[in-house]
């Protein structure tokens, strides 16, 4: 399994990620750590804690991949570390990771590639301590691009995992 090494590495990060997990009851986030996941209660007009909007605002709902690749880069790992922490905060939240590809591949291979991408993120979350039962994966291959158009910029943004709160 190609994720064995990654898993060991991720486990080392796990401690740091959980150390400063904020209290849900805290009135204000005083930690001063920008990377902290959303622990704020819903301010008027703000997202409901543990919601998709909360995830989007305070974690980011997607990570990107290189062409025909499924390995996570440092940005992706950072996002997933925030996501793991956020999921630690909101223990009742389960998510689906959608794996997507750009249109510059064939349909069936891209279904397999999207599966591999969604599983790469799931593996990392599990390595960070998230219960695997809280994370399901689905591949859409090249069927659901996020950005319209047929150009390098669109393709780069369409090679992605998207995190969806169930």
């Amino acid at each position: 399994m190609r994720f064995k090494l990654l898993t060991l590495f991720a486990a080392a990060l796990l401690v740091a990620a959980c150390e400063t997990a904020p209290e849900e009851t805290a009135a204000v986030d005083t930690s001063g750590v920008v990377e902290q996941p959303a622990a704020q209660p819903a301010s008027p007009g703000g997202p409901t804690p543990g919601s998709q909007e909360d995830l989007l605002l305070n974690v980011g709902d997607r990570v990107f991949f290189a062409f025909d690749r499924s390995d996570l880069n440092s940005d992706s790992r950072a996002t997933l570390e925030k996501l793991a922490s956020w999921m630690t905060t909101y223990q009742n939240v389960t998510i689906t990771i959608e794996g997507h590809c750009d249109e510059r591949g064939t349909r069936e291979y891209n279904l397999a590639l999207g599966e591999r991408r969604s599983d790469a993120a799931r593996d990392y979350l599990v390595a960070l301590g998230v219960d695997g039962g809280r994370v399901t994966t689905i591949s859409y291959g090249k069927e659901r691009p996020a950005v319209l158009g047929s150009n390098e910029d669109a393709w780069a943004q369409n090679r992605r995992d998207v995190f969806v709160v169930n």
Partner: protein
Amino acid sequence: MNNSATSFVSAVALALAVALGSGVPARAELNVDITQGFVEPLPVAITDFYAETLEESKTGKDLAGVISADLERSGLFRPIDHGAFIQDAASLRKGPRFSDWRLINAQALIQGSVEMQPDGRLRVNFRLWDVFAEQQMTGLAYFTTPSNWRRVAHIVADVIYKRLTGEDGYFDTRLVYVAESGPQNRRVKRLGIMDQDGENHRFLTAGNELVLTPRFSPTTQEITYLSYISEIPRVYLFNLNTGQQEVLGDFPGMTFAPRFSPDGNKVIMSLADNGNSDIFTMDLRTRGVKRLTNHPAIDTSPSYSPDGRRIAFNSDRGGSQQLYVMDSDGGNVRRISFNQGRYATPVWSPRGDLVAFTRMSNGEFYIGVMRPDGSGERMLTKGFLVEGPTWAPNGRVLSYFRQTPADSRGRVTSKVYTIDLTGFNERELATPIDASDPAWSPLIP
């Protein structure tokens, strides 16, 4: 839409007396050589089928029209404009005046007649003449329900095609495909089915869930395809007679890339388990599942050889997406694609001699063919996105789809095309809305 038509169509050889012109010297039989690359289409005269009544006359005209369109679309025949005909229909009944047909350079002449029987069935007969040899090449009669006339036309066209080319026809067939509409990011996809000439079109699913990659059973009126019913991508069977859909197996992960075995008893497909896709078969009677590949790479798009002994598939086990062939038990895996770029969607020809594929190289997509050992690679067509070849049952014609780049509003066009094995005679197959993922049926039993 008459799937049960088989029982109504009974062909009987008329054993019509060969009208031999007495003083005609022996000469080579009329034959279309289609082993060459480009073939100059053979001029043929296809007369309206004769009938006594007005209603039957319309059917006779329609029959000739469908036969004519079939033969023309093959790229091997050029039907001569009726305005050029010298001999009229009434006198043709008594026999061709070959000199009249030679004068307009008709190499072959097709005549026929239509007659309603007392039992309500339609009797259709036709004769194919070699104009220069002044000989009848074949003559047959069919009895059918009147509404089934179109199928009879395709069957007649198949007989003519075979008699003149020596190869099996493919006109009495259908294509199942994915009908598409809407912008790139909210594309609605439905299963559609139509005759190979685009007629008798109907949708099989409503578009509520994403459907992909339908394929025909070689033996039954069933297709296998991928559907996202309940947002779970799985392989399904669709029974064309009953309209029933059935999920195939109960697997923990996504099942996809299904295709029937040549005997129709198995479906071969990919199963994704913890992110990794391998190839499995499921026996449709016992529901027994067998693993064929066990590799951390992507293994997908399996396609059996027509004898069922080997399987072509797509894998990135060598570092990039390439074509492989293995024995049907999963052993003896060897790579067959070695040129520049990435290769995908291998589909074994019904004749067994070639594997069609999609190739991606230097930012372009190609449809090509190679021998199963990887030799003789040849590109048939290319474009921004061409994908997913499928073979007509005679292994002579392929279909695939072609998609345009999207504009900034996500508008794309996707159309199904057919092309001759030589790479000539590329044509769009008209569909009511956009189309992709075509799959050719076997000859209708």
